[in-house]
């Protein structure tokens, strides 16, 4: 049996080949190790942002100032938003699972540009450090909200420039990741694997990579213009100097709307892996799922205006954007129905990843359908910038992307570490998370409909009850999160050892010679002349001799 990629010395390095294990990790260009490092850093940031969220929830427990004053609260939700968006969820699924499993799924030895991958990781760390440095330097962390709207961001004295620079650097990292994945998917698929034989997760990553590549530069340059405006006062977005703040909003959302699909598409990919595997049958409507990813990415570019329904944009533009927005819901719906149909006449194994996936079906459907509510112009004029919107995007991002990220974590855990966690505990943790989450965010739909604006640190007493339910939901949710991570972390060292294909799955990443996989993945590259989810009576059709990667079925 070959050595696992986690063992000392089993790695390629960007420069030379250092003896020290520490430097082997710092310089590693192995996609799996880079993915693991991303996971470690990203979850650390997640917990920081979660902690900030908790302070916000405490502040909102009752009207009046509790523990934060207005300005600190403003910095708190900015910090929360910036970390969650730029440091956690945008790199999220692609950087972790895109790196770890995507090359395995297409039978590649690594990504196309492994050194670039290494550089990207450190660029990400660099950007993160800049973002955090602004906490302690200058006038304190930015207080603009993660949207940086002009002219507020131009006038405020807080450390906006540093935050903008950080967002720019993180954007670069995201672009380079996307570029690397695009070339990898185009060039390094195993022979025989055409686009319609790729696993659906790869499709998700592929669609996302296009968004990273083509949308991110727009926000990048917008941030640069805002920085120049702040430094030199040339007035690009400042109405008192002839500029136009609404232009900023356009340019910002030209990126940031596609960015939400950048988050969700690879997460949907995870769903498309888990459902067929645990239904033990072929996925329903492979092509429609694959193509709907592509069309969501495509249409996603055309709908940014739905964030500007109350900005003073012309009614015609509002109408067009509203109309186009509805067209995103249709391919998304097709995906959901395909997943449900995949369960039909299958044999459903209710493992932890499956539980997370099905839980997400519930939460994301709520998130998506409430998105449709605010895509209706008249409704959004009422609901824009209220807690209804906030609840919508937490349902979509937390109940969609983050839940699926957790699902993926449970699904690929045995692959990454060659060990299993305790499923009984893991399932219990799921229920804490699921119930806590709904209790945390569902009341906010009602508060928002009744007129509770967002970014308020103090509010009218009428809304207290909703905020209090929400607070207790947050507590349950915390418990669940800590529980879940405890179960997983303790399993890295102590979990029961398992073989390479613990779940009886069909895609290539499960046909490795060992678990955890060796440095250069498959011992031989297989010839792929089969569809990704071929099951026959509940057993994978395709079997390999893991030494020669010849099919033995």
């Amino acid at each position, binding site marked *: 049996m070959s050595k696992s990629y986690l063992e000392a010395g089993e790695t*390629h*390095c960007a*420069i*030379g*080949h250092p003896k020290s294990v520490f430097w082997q990790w710092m310089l590693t260009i192995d996609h799996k190790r880079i993915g693991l490092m991303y996971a470690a850093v990203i979850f650390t940031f997640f917990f920081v942002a979660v902690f900030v969220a908790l302070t916000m929830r405490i502040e909102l427990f009752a009207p009046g100032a509790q523990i934060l004053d207005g300005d600190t609260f403003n910095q708190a939700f900015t910090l929360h938003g910036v970390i969650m968006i730029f440091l956690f969820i945008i790199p999220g699924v692609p950087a972790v699972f895109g790196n770890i499993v995507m090359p395995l799924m297409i039978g*590649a*030895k*690594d*990504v*196309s*540009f*492994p050194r670039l991958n290494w550089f990207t990781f450190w660029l990400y760390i660099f950007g993160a450090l800049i973002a955090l440095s602004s906490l302690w330097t200058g006038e304190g962390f930015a207080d603009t909200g993660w949207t940086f709207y002009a002219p507020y961001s131009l006038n405020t004295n807080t450390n906006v420039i540093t935050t903008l620079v950080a967002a720019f650097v993180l954007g670069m990292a995201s*672009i380079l990741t996307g*570029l*690397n994945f*695009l*070339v*990898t998917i*185009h*060039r*390094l698929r*195993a*022979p*025989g694997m055409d686009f319609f034989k790729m696993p659906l997760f790869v499709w998700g990553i592929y669609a996302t990579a296009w968004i990273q*590549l*083509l*949308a*991110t*530069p*727009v926000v*990048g*340059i*917008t941030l*640069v*213009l805002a920085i*120049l*405006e702040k430094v*030199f*006062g*040339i*007035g*690009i977005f400042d109405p*008192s*100097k*002839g*500029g*136009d703040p609404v*232009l900023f909003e356009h*340019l910002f959302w*030209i990126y940031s709307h596609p960015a939400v699909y950048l988050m969700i598409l690879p997460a949907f990919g995870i769903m498309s892996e888990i459902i067929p595997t645990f239904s033990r049958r072929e996925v329903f409507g492979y092509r429609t799922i694959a193509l709907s990813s592509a069309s969501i990415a495509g249409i996603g570019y055309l709908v940014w205006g739905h964030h500007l329904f109350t900005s003073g944009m012309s009614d015609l533009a509002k109408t067009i954007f509203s109309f186009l927005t509805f067209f995103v819901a249709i391919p998304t719906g097709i995906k959901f129905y395909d997943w449900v149909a995949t369960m039909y006449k299958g044999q459903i194994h209710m493992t932890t990843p499956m539980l997370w996936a099905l839980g997400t079906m519930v939460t994301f459907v709520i998130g998506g359908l409430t998105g449709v509510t605010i895509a209706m112009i008249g409704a959004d004029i009422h609901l824009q910038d209220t807690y209804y919107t906030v609840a919508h995007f937490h349902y979509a991002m937390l109940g969609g992307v983050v839940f699926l990220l957790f699902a993926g974590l449970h699904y690929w855990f045995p692959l990454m570490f060659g060990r299993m966690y305790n499923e009984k505990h893991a399932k219990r943790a799921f229920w804490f998370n699921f119930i806590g989450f709904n209790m945390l965010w569902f009341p906010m739909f009602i508060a928002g409909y009744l007129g509770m604006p967002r970014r308020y640190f103090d509010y009218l007493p009428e809304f207290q009850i909703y905020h209090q339910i929400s607070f207790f939901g947050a507590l349950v949710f915390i418990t669940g999160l800590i529980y879940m991570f405890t179960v997983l972390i303790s399993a890295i060292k102590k979990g029961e050892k398992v073989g390479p294909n613990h779940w009886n799955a069909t895609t290539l990443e499960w046909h490795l010679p060992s678990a955890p996989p060796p440095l*250069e993945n498959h011992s*031989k*590259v*297989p*010839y792929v*002349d089969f569809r990704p989810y071929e099951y026959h009576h509940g057993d994978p059709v395709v079997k390999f001799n893991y030494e020669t*990667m*010849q*099919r033995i079925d």
Partner: protein
Amino acid sequence: MSHEEHGHEYVPEIATARDGKQYEVQGWQGDFYGGKLGFWLFMLTEVMMFGAMFLTLTYYFSLHHDDFIEASSEFSVLLGGTNTVVLLISALTMGLGLLKMRAGDVKGAKLMIYATMILALVFLAIKGVEWTEDYHDGVFLGLPALQAGNPDSRPLGEILFFGMYFTMTGLHGFHIILGIGLMLWLLKRINAGKVTPEHHILHFNIALYWDLVHLIWVFVFPYFYMIGAGHGH
């Protein structure tokens, strides 16, 4: 660094289909088309970036039409035009260099790269002259003329125009400097025998990059220098 030590070398692999047919496996090392595709994708990001800037510029042009024309008429078409021609020729030398490299004439290729670098420096020098003049005329980022709300300031539309001018030509100039750096690196790699007629993806991509830098100028030039040409002054 030697590759052999830790198995980095590309060992061509073969996959066998069920019926015994063999297919070559594409590895990431030495994948010419992959390198080219990656670089094109990178260039698309530049297109989007400058696209967004041109969008901003056009937006303000329609908002402050007359100020833009007025400000543009102050530029020297002569200097800008010269620079256009300089860049044009440098694109040619760069292209010829690549042709020579591919035809096996490494020495000629190097010569052409040197020529390109010199032209790039000429471009920067002329740009420098223009910026210095602007500075002496008091029109420069941070100077009072380009800051609203004081007695010396220009009309708002002109401030925007010049602001965008320095931003965009500055960014373009930065790309030129980067290009010179890349060419120096390319020369180093050629001398070290890492870039050869058989393995010239680096040269190829840097040539593409240079064309992109030229391409951006093709739009920057008329936008800033020509829209006001022929209006007074």
